[in-house]
C-alpha cells in the first residue's frame, strides 16, 4: 500500500485532484453527481444526513457537507466541479461564494481581489 508522492502535492493552497484524493472523496463526488437531477437535490435538502449515508460518506465528510465547509470538503476529497452541483443548484451559492468562503473573504472582498488582477 504505497501512495506515490507528486511534485504537485506541495503547491500552497492548492489541492490537486488525483488518485489519492479521488479514492478518498469518491462518495462525496458520487453524491454530488446525483444532484444533476432536481428530485435528488430536493431529497438531499429534506434530510442531508440520510442522503449522505446512502452514498457512504464518512462522519467527517457528512459533517463538512452539512456545514457547507467547502475547504474541509475539498481536503476530504471533494472536487470543485462536482461540489458546484451541491453549492449552486443544491445550495443557492455561486462558484465565487464558494471561493470566497475557502479564502476566508466576503464575496465582495473576493470580487475585489479578482478585479485587482487587472492592474498586473
Amino acid at each position, binding site marked *: 500500500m504505497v501512495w506515490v508522492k*507528486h*511534485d*504537485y502535492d506541495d*503547491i*500552497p*493552497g*492548492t*489541492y*490537486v*485532484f*488525483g*488518485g489519492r484524493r*479521488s479514492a478518498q472523496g*469518491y462518495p462525496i*463526488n*458520487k453524491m*454530488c*453527481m446525483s*444532484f*444533476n*437531477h*432536481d428530485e435528488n*437535490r430536493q431529497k438531499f435538502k429534506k434530510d442531508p444526513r440520510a442522503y449522505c449515508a446512502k452514498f457512504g460518506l464518512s462522519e467527517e465528510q457528512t459533517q463538512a457537507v452539512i456545514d457547507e465547509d*467547502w*475547504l474541509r470538503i*475539498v481536503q476530504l476529497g471533494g*472536487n*470543485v*466541479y*462536482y*461540489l*458546484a*452541483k*451541491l453549492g*449552486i*443548484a*443544491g445550495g443557492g451559492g455561486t*462558484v*465565487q461564494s*464558494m*471561493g*470566497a468562503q*475557502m*479564502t*476566508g473573504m466576503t464575496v465582495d472582498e*473576493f*470580487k475585489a*481581489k*479578482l*478585479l485587482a*488582477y*487587472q492592474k*498586473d
Partner: protein
Amino acid sequence: MAQIVGGITTSHIPSIGNAITNKQQDDPYWRPLFDGYDRAREWIEKVEPDIVVVVYNDHGLNFFLDKMPTFAIGAAPKYHNADEGWGLATLHSFDGDVEFSWHLIEQMIPAGIDLTICQEMLIDHGFIVPMSAIWSHLPEWPVKAVPFAVNTVLMPVPTAQRCFDVGKELGKAIASYPEDKKVVIFGTGGMSHQLSGERAGFINKAFDREFQEKIANDPESLCKLSHTELIKLAGAEGIELIMWLVMRGALGKSVNVVHQNYELPISNTGSGIMVLEPA
C-alpha cells in the same frame, strides 16, 4: 476533401452562459468580453463552416470518476444538453455528423490515439457555452458538431505534448475526409483560474498574455510545461489550457491571428478569445 478553415480559443465559463440567457451582453461588465465574441462571429459568418470540432472537458454531466476517459470523441446523431446542477438553462441539442465522426475515429485510433468512442454523449457547459457565445442569436445551431472531450479533471490528465500530438492527428484525420466540408476547431477552457483551496481566485495575467502569444507562434514551447508548472502558473483549473494545444496541433505549422482579445476577471477567470487561421 474536408478543410480546416480555422480555430477559435475561448473560455467556457458558466457565467458567460448565464449572461447570454439573461441578455446582459451590453452591461458594462460584459460588453468588452462580448466584443470579442462579436469579432469571432463576424469571422465565422465569413468562413461559413459546416462542422465544428469542439475540444472541451466535461465537468460531470456525461462522465464521472467511475469511467474517466483521457480522450473521448462523439459519434452520435444528436448531442443533448441537460441539467448539470450548475444553475444553467438547458439549451437545445446539437446535430452530429455520424459519418464524419467515424472517419476521424477510424483515422486516429489506428494512429495510436486511444479514444473512447461515444455513440451517446451529453454535452455540458464546457461545450455549449462557447457555441452559445457565437450563435445565441439564431433559433438553431447552424453547424454540425463533433464533441472531443479531454480529461482535465482527474490527474494524471494528458501531458501538454500529448495534447498537441493528438491535435496533429486530429488535423490529419479531418483533412483526409473525402467530402468537401469546412471545419472550425474550438479549443475551450482556461485561461488562468483556480476555483478551490486557499489559493482560490488566483489569476495570472502575464502568463495568460504570454500563452496567447505562444499558442499562435510557438506552441512547441508550451508543450514543455509540466502539469505542476501549469498549475503553479495558471491555477489548478488553468490546466484546462492543455485543450488549446489540441486545437493548435490540428491547425498545422503556422497560423495567422485574425482576432485576439483578453479580459479579466470573467467570473474567476482570465478570458482570452482568439481566432486563428492556418497560414
